């Protein structure tokens, strides 16, 4: 059991989404959603299919640009931020469908996560001597720590395409961690996993939050998982936020129950 007295305290808001609206043609994916993500917390975003969860993550890391509303990252307004800018700012993510380079090894996949932090240009890296080599060694050292942390030593040299789905998810998390993010966005990190793999993943998410102090926002359907690991839960339904608070409060919220189970009219 995490002991609340010694865990890094949940701090100030680092990402503030204010009244975000996003529409694709006639479909209103997000409708005036406001959400604050606070430093060191684990925030779960839940909601029925099509509620706008992934769209919200995509807005946060610059995949989509909202028609209305404002995004503020650590007090600085970010307008029309692009994904690589978000990455450079310290926002990294994983995807609902694993998005790795299938022909490359686990190690190489994770190394790509270090790209935003490489100082030397392509030419230097191609020559691969002196400073460029030294830099790569440092990155490799960091990546090896992540490999150790996520216990994937045995698959270091295995092409990702040959791995079981649960392991691919873990590699994707490793790559996201390689960017040393301040905010980690996880889109259904446990989809398609068996109970044991889910337990492992939960443990890794908690450990990441704990050891690195990384703020985590995750989308998840497994309510058991959500209630167990998150500090706060935000609920979306038809593009609107209908609840936001500690897991126990949200679980008892009539609007949430209605969204999940339907209501008698």
């Amino acid at each position, binding site marked *: 059991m995490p002991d609340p007295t010694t865990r890094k305290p949940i701090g100030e808001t680092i990402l503030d989404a204010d009244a975000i609206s996003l529409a694709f043609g006639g479909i209103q994916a997000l409708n005036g959603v406001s959400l604050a993500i606070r430093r060191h917390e684990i925030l779960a975003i839940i909601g029925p299919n099509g509620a706008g969860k992934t769209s919200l993550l995509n807005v946060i890391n610059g995949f989509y640009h909202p028609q209305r509303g404002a995004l503020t990252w650590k007090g600085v307004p970010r307008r029309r931020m692009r994904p690589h800018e978000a990455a450079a700012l310290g926002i990294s993510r994983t995807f609902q469908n694993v998005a790795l380079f299938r022909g490359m090894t686990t190690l190489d996949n994770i190394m790509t996560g270090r790209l935003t932090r490489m100082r030397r240009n392509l030419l230097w890296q191609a020559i691969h001597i002196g400073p460029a080599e030294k830099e790569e060694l440092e990155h490799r050292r960091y990546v090896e720590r992540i490999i150790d942390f996520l216990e994937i030593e045995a698959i270091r040299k295995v092409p990702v395409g040959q791995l079981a789905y649960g392991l691919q998810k873990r590699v994707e998390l490793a790559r996201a961690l390689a960017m040393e993010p301040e905010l980690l966005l996880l889109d259904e990190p446990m989809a398609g996993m068996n109970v*044991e793999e889910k337990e492992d993943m939960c443990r890794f998410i908690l450990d990441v939050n704990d050891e690195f102090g990384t703020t985590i926002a995750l989308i998840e359907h497994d309510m058991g998982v959500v209630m167990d690991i998150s500090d706060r839960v935000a609920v979306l339904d038809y593009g609107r936020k209908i609840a936001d608070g500690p897991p126990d409060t949200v679980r008892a919220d009539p609007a949430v129950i209605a969204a999940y189970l339907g209501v008698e009219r």
Partner: protein
Amino acid sequence: MTLAEAVVATDPSGAATAASGPDAADTFPKMLFEHARIRPERPAMREKGYGIWQSWNWAQVAGEIEALAGGLKTLGFARGDKLAIIGDNRPLLYWAIAAAQALGGVPVPMYQDSIADEMAYVLDHAEIRFAIVEDQEQVDKLVLVKERCPLLETVIFCDSRGLRHYAQPYLHACDALRETGRVFARAQPGFFGDEIARGHGADTAIILYTSGTTGRPKGVVLSFDNLIATARAAIDFEGLSDREEVLAYLPMAWIGEHVFSYVQAYCAGFCVSCPESPATALADLRELGPSYLFAPPRIFENILTQVMIRMEDAAWVKRRLFQYFLGVAKRIGPALLDRRPAGWRDRALYWLGNLLVYGPLKNALGMTRVRVAYTAGEAIGPDLFLFYRSLGINLKQLYGMTESSVFLCIQKDGQVKPDTVGVPIPGVEIRVADNGELSFRSPGAFQSYYKNKEATEDAKTPDGWVYTGDAGFFDADGQLTIVDRARDVGRLSGGALFAPKFIENKLKFFPYIKEAVAFGDSRDFVTAFINIDLDAAANWAERRGLAYASYQELAANESVYDLVEGCIAQVNRDFAAEPSLAASQIHRFLILHKELDADDGELTRTRKVRRGTVAERYAALVGALYSGAHFGHIETEVTFEDGRTGIMRADLAIRDVGTAPVRHAEEVA
């Protein structure tokens, strides 16, 4: 440096004479001192961390152990205290063994995959006050049983990952402890050496709990003298030196692992390497290329299965090449290894095979540099055994047990027969009782079972003979053959000998069969339960386009039954050719719907079948095998990895297998 001062303090002459070298030391901490003095720069320990082999030389290891011992001392560890050691093979845990021994304490390694209940029993029985464990997984188990084990005071963990917020006051991080220990050592430089000097060969060195195929585990008490005398005899027997390379990858609680990776390493001064993680052990083995290798048969079996699977997926040319030269190797390899004469044509062919197949294969397995490889712990199938020898790998069998500090018999180079376990090593006497049971007397014979006078008296006579529980006989060359556990050897109702393990080993040689349990004692004929090997069978199914969703479904598949029936028919043909075994042909079999599992008590932690438990749990199926029915219904309770239990139901098909006609001696002639 404090250690150097201590060396001088215990050895005022300062001369490295034979009488004061490691050969004269009577405890492992004393040997540590000597190694740190004689070969301070030689590597003593390696571990793969962050993808790179990190190493420690003997001087550094001595410093680490001194720090650990100092840390333990500041926590109140006193002479006679027990230190539980739980985790995968990690240098720190090996150092903890030496640290406890240096302080006059007794290390008690425990199986790291034990569930909390099993641990509670040992913790309680061995009156353990201190435990050093690898990581959060083990800490969680100890936290869980702490209330039931009031004696347990202190838990030290090596890897602090995930443990930062554990507020229990009895938890200590090993890193901090070593720091305290270093401070302690600086403040009291003579302490470590003085404590070590107080230890003697007759003291208890270790207590190892045997997993045991029946009942509660028993704590085998071994003295330094037991371990050292036996290990030295074996080192002389094989001519081992301080240049050997060993990979420590088997459970630390197992006597074999303890002797090979700790006792012999200290006696001979060679380097021990720890793999990066249990899952990478085979890859690490390849990188390391050990010269001295020890594995129970199941590991050799797994490796062979992997090779066979990969060869089946290989290109046509490679497959033909492999099969052809494997045939050549089988014919002449063992003879060449034993330096028996062979024709020049055969030699040339084998040389070519070595170039094209055996050499690359050995390299891929990490066995290129192996001088001596042992298999023990269980009987090994002769075909499996000869496969390795035919490649030129000096795989040998040995016979021993926890109670004998391992070595009783070893096969001598040049005199290796697949069905024997070799000759008794110097110092060991073995006698055979009328019922075939073996007993031995040796310097390695254990002191007692801890706090179990009754069991000790049952196993050990006042004049030092220890009953092994194994049945066997000596052949004309003085080599020992082990038939089975004495109590497992039975007779069919027709009077023929029934040795279940022998039959099971025959079956297990097929890559598709992972585990087998044979029945037949006091029955009319032999039947068997089969566990398919998921890796091999899944690969086989994939190549045939067989769809299945789970182990259970694959195991019940008609084609898989055909496959296994083929294997059994082959075994039956082999048995039919041996008059003494003809009656052991398998008449009926079924494939179990789940893998036999140590968590369900069906296997021991070293993966030996608990025959009694299996027969009991699956009594309905055994009944069905002998009732003539074509189906057996079974409900079993299973334990999942997280400790929860559930009920598994299945209807299993039962197959009859054709038996081969017995060829009588005169027909053969």
